[in-house]
């Protein structure tokens, strides 16, 4: 490798993406094909897959075995839990959250989608858009994954017919736009045969778009930090109290969004006290400005009472603080969530007590209908919730910030992660009043 190549690799951008598909849509095969054809599978891994495939009596290496890492997954031939895969091309590095498609693991897709910059929704060309497809699209929309790819798989089994692809792509795109997904890239593929995953297909002359990998390599990543309001949750206060740094007091944290500059007037929430940034230490170097997602240490002109859980924000764009939260949630735990439950709420670096005041509605991801006032939410349910917290929180709407608009509910008795929350309104919020016949007007 030349020095130029190395510099290129070092400076490459990072795309996190998640895959979603029903059990037999061939998701593991697609992921295996992506890794295999991009030469990200090394000889010893392939040997292990070939050995295991032979052991199972299979004629050809089963690429799905590359990704199913747990004993129980290999035994049952299904993916139980989210796994992370890493691969790189000269243009970009990738972190893939490989999420299971089973209905009972919707929470795992929510988990994978929470950090993804792109979601690949897989459809079997023979079956077209099914309930599970709609569920996956809804989760991607709810979690605000910036880019959605529809991979119409098993094109080899429908004679590589353009009409089949066009009909599925049309139906999905129409559904996605109702969910507020701006743009869908639809790609006809055969994961088994390798069409349009990494290598362009020789069977579909009518398709002029990119392969899955080309699209992953070229989709824009990240957002322009200058377009969002700056937010800095304080993680840890650094006070060395050593002879060289007697008066050093720095507020360490990761910038959640936006840009901070030396000289900015800032407010500290929830107290509302104000000061000015005098220095930004970016892991060892002093800088004039820093932006998300950098981990830095801020120093302020005034000695304020600031601790873990506080939010530093420019005085010009401070969010309101509130103890009453309305949000869309995905319930994750086996134990149900009920009105009146006392929970812990973790938002950025702050954990407070909270009470579930009400469950206004539960959303069916299959057809986007609402059940008003359910008695409880069970695992994998998506619903609306209102909460009252013991202390004020500076929450942004999730539509503005995936970092400062998200939270977890935690069981205070044993620490179980109960629920994932997204503050503010979303398509999961029914237009008031909630109709009782299950119909819902966009």
């Amino acid at each position: 490798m030349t020095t130029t190549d190395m510099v290129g690799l070092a400076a490459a951008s990072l795309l996190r993406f998640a895959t979603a598909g029903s059990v037999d849509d061939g998701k593991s095969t697609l992921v295996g094909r992506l890794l295999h054809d991009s030469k990200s599978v090394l000889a010893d891994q392939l040997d292990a897959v070939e050995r295991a495939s032979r052991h199972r009596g299979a004629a050809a290496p089963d690429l799905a075995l590359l990704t199913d890492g747990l004993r129980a997954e290999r035994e049952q031939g299904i993916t139980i839990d989210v796994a992370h895969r890493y691969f790189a091309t000269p243009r970009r590095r990738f972190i893939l959250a490989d999420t299971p498609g089973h209905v009972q693991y919707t929470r795992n897709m929510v988990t994978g989608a929470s950090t993804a910059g792109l979601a690949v929704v897989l459809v079997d060309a023979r079956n077209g858009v099914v309930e599970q497809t709609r569920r996956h699209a809804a989760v991607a929309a709810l979690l605000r994954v910036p880019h959605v790819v529809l991979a119409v798989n098993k094109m080899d089994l429908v004679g590589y017919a353009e009409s089949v692809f066009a009909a599925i792509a049309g139906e999905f795109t129409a559904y996605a736009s109702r969910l507020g997904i701006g743009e869908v890239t639809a790609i006809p593929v055969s994961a088994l045969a390798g069409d349009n995953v990494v290598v362009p297909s020789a069977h579909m002359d009518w398709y002029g778009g990119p392969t899955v990998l080309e699209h992953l390599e070229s989709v824009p990543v990240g957002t322009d930090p200058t377009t969002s309001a700056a937010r800095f949750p304080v993680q840890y206060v650094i006070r060395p109290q050593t002879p060289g740094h007697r008066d050093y007091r720095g507020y360490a944290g990761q910038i959640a969004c936006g840009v901070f500059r030396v000289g900015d007037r800032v407010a500290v929430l929830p107290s509302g006290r104000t000061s000015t940034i005098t220095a930004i230490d970016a892991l060892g170097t002093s800088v004039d400005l820093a932006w998300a997602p950098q981990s830095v240490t801020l120093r302020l002109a005034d000695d304020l009472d600031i601790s873990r859980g506080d939010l530093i924000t420019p005085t010009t764009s401070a969010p309101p603080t509130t103890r009453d939260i309305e949000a869309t949630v995905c319930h994750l735990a086996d134990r149900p969530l009920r009105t009146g439950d006392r929970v812990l709420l973790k938002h950025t670096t702050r954990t407070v007590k909270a009470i579930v005041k009400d469950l206004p509605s539960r959303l069916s991801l299959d057809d986007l209908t609402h059940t008003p006032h359910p008695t409880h939410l069970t695992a994998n349910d998506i619903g609306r919730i209102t909460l009252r917290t013991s202390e004020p929180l500076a929450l942004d709407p999730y539509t503005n910030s995936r970092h400062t608009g998200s939270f977890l509910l935690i069981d205070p008795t044993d620490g179980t992660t109960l629920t994932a929350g997204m503050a503010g309104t979303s398509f999961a919020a029914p237009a008031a009043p909630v109709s009782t016949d299950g119909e819902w007007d966009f």
Partner: protein
Amino acid sequence: MLSHVDVLESEAVHVFREVAGEFERPVMLFSGGKDSIVMLHLALKAFAPAAVPFALLHVDTGHNFPEVLAYRDRVVAEHGLRLHVASVQEFIDDGRLRERGDGTRNPLQTVPLLEAIGRHRFDAVFGGGRRDEEKARAKERVFSLRDEFGGWDPRRQRPELWQLYNGRHAPGEHVRVFPLSNFTELDVWQYIAREKIELPSIYFAHEREVFAREGMWLAPGGWGGPREGERVERRLVRYRTVGDMSCTGAVDSDAVTIEAVIAEITASRLTERGATRADDKLSEAAMEDRKREGYF
């Protein structure tokens, strides 16, 4: 725009600070291998100019490479760190552990590790594990709750969303924390190159005595090699991973600089563990099974 290495660094620092902010008694596993060295470098940056607010814990198998132990002691002294050592040899000497027939001590580490965690009441234990290393590790969370026996149950893991890590645990339980989860072997080397981090010399090509066993070059030593019929020879080699001498193999290499190492692993057709770790070859689920028992 930030490069992918910048993003990974920033996230790892975030993880260190979360643990320091939420736990009472964290500790960092430190073996003197490249991953733990990178982990320590990140911890030093996360809390600078203050000191790292936790101690190090080394599980010493008794069959460590001398260069690595020397390196360990040097960095501990240089940064004024506190080091706890949990010794497999002590456990064997007093009868709490028995030597295995194959001479490998890697699986024996779990017992002294869990004993040290219990005795010091550590509630968070940083490990340098990376998800790209092995398929069971690909399923690992950044914060991984372990029960009172140190066990990992992959079916009962907490979902991990956004960057909201849940460190709640009951008395007796602890959390394993993996700040390098999203680094790959290449990322680690690129970070070492960028930050100019010093490594033990065995990571770079050097002549040493080795003998062949099951397709790997092992270093002779008091741990029990070579056996009869195994011939020692001098070769130009380096190590891709550093662990117990009985199961860590060297690879043929002439890479004497970081740049040459990066070029070598970029071109390699073998994974780091496939090339150099005997213990992962024991069965298809070797790592998963060890992790269930409390191995990091």
